[in-house]
């Protein structure tokens, strides 16, 4: 190896983007094909700087659009090596076509999706519209609630996605600015420990193996298309969850940090609970703790693995609760929130009596304050006490003007 290693401190103060870039460096990614977009740009800039400083040996291909970025990733992954990129928002929208192609071709690629609102109106700040837009694109999706997790989940993403029984691309979500540009203290792994965890890339059906020529991205008509998609879905449902468990367990062994498909906080005896994603999970934990002091048995569930969606974990965790709020950070566009629907889907056909309400919040970076969450838990407790929803099923929080509520 001709590149230099970095000596890291036990605690480094990094923001989420830099944490992700460090993970790409430690995983010794072979090709980064990318196009810059706020707030994800620093992930790619970070990798490019590592290359400029001889800290990685991979190729940096700065293409002319996000669609080309993922196209380049697909070509590189099919050629047979470790591949990663980063994008957000409109960039993801432009890339969307190729996301389906990457997963259908069963190519492991790690995409750092730094969650940002979708125009119009144009907005560079965080919401989860981009994450939701590609939720059915066949990618495994992890969600980081802070910079440490963005780092950890990148390493885990390579390990899971590249497994020969999985061979699926992985999105690592983090909140734009709230995580990507927020510096916090992290405990990174050493370069050796991180690389040994991810492991050497093991090629499969690689185009650069000239002893086994392979055609990638072939066409299937109605006689075969369904079988290919069925296989992909079956593998995602049947194989991927256990592979994620294995990777989480091994990661815990080397780091002491334990990850789960859903992250439960104070749920053992909880009566009311908030289900959400991103940095809101942590803010909700802080508020839940304060609500406990006021006598409300509050808990929080954070969705760590958004795809494959943890239906069984959710229904088990929520079945005995009295009232649950599901927070969706995306404009629902004439429906219930997507996470609300997933949670509702996890509970239907069970005999739970839990009251479910949905909240749309935080669009375009609108602050989710502790006060919002205090009010929300208070409302949940009122529902629980009444044994029925006292509000409409869908409410908007944090928006100016007359109260918005639907359904």
């Amino acid at each position, binding site marked *: 190896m001709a590149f230099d290693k970095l000596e890291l401190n036990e*605690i480094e*103060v990094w*923001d989420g983007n830099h944490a992700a870039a460090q993970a790409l460096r430690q995983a010794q990614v072979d090709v980064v094909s990318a196009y810059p977009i*706020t*707030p994800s740009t620093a992930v790619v800039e970070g990798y490019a700087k590592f290359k400029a400083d001889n800290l990685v040996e991979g190729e940096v291909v700065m293409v002319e659009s996000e669609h080309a970025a993922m196209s380049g990733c697909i070509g590189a992954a099919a050629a047979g090596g470790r591949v990663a990129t980063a994008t957000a928002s409109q960039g993801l929208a432009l890339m969307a076509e190729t996301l389906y192609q990457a997963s259908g071709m069963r190519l492991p690629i790690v995409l750092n999706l730094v969650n940002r609102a979708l125009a119009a109106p*144009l907005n*560079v700040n965080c919401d989860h519209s981009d994450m939701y837009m590609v939720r059915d694109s066949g990618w495994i999706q992890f969600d980081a609630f802070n910079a440490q997790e963005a780092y950890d989940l990148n390493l885990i993403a390579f390990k899971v996605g590249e497994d020969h029984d999985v061979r699926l691309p992985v999105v690592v979500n983090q*909140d734009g*600015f*709230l995580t990507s*540009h*927020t*510096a*916090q*203290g992290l405990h990174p792994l050493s370069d050796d420990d991180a690389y040994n965890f991810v492991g050497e890339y093991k090629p499969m059906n690689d185009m650069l193996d000239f002893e086994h020529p392979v055609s990638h991205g072939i066409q299937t008509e109605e006689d075969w298309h369904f079988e290919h998609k069925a296989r992909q879905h079956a593998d995602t449902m049947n194989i991927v969850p256990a592979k994620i468990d294995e990777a989480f367990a091994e990661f815990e062994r080397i780091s002491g940090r334990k990850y789960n498909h859903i992250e439960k906080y104070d749920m053992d005896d909880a009566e009311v609970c908030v289900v959400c994603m991103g*940095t*809101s999970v*942590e*803010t909700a*934990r*802080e508020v839940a703790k304060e609500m406990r002091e006021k006598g409300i048995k509050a808990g929080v569930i954070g969705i760590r693995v958004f795809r494959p969606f943890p239906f069984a974990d959710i229904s088990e965790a929520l079945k005995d609760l009295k009232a649950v709020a599901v927070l969706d950070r995306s404009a629902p566009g004439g429906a219930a929130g997507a996470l609300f629907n997933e949670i509702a889907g996890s509970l239907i056909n069970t005999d739970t009596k839990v009251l479910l309400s949905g909240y749309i919040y935080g669009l375009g970076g609108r*602050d*989710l*304050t*502790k*006060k919002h969450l205090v009010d929300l838990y208070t409302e949940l407790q009122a529902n629980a006490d009444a044994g029925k929803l006292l509000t409409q099923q869908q409410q908007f929080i944090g928006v100016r003007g007359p109260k918005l509520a639907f359904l």
Partner: protein
Amino acid sequence: MLEIRWHSRAGQGAVTGAKGLADVISTTGKHVQAFAFYGSAKRGAAMTAYNRVDDKPVLNHEKYMEPDYVFVIDPALVYTSDVTVNGKDNTKYIITTHLPKDELIKAQPKLEGKEVYTVDCITIANETIGRPIPNTPMLGAFMKISEMYDIEFFKESMKRILKKLPQKIVDANMIAIQRAYDEVK
């Protein structure tokens, strides 16, 4: 929980200053958070940056803050933005200005009755670093007012954080930090 709000213009180094401060504090075993509000506005636009410091992990990601300290590193912002917003009774204001404190408060009555400290970070930066980057001097002033760390320890820590810069610039920053420490009133 210690909370700090920075008022700055984009390009004046508030984000770097906030992250640098977080880095120094982190080495002492405390938990830190440093972030900023960005828009699409370019260099020169008013912006805010934030620090949170606590003995336990910082979980709160809300942007709303009732700060313990407000740093104003550009002299005009004290007039053009409300630096006292969400202030508490005991919030301390460290403000970059060439004016004496009483004239500043006369010019901006919102500061009346607040705990205000003044230091001319712009002039200090111009005279030491050679550029109007007032972030490190502000931290020198903060060390004096907060008595958070011994100034020599703080300067040593900042040397480590600035180590990628040319030695001349690092040295100039050390002088700037010390001057602001000495000159803040």
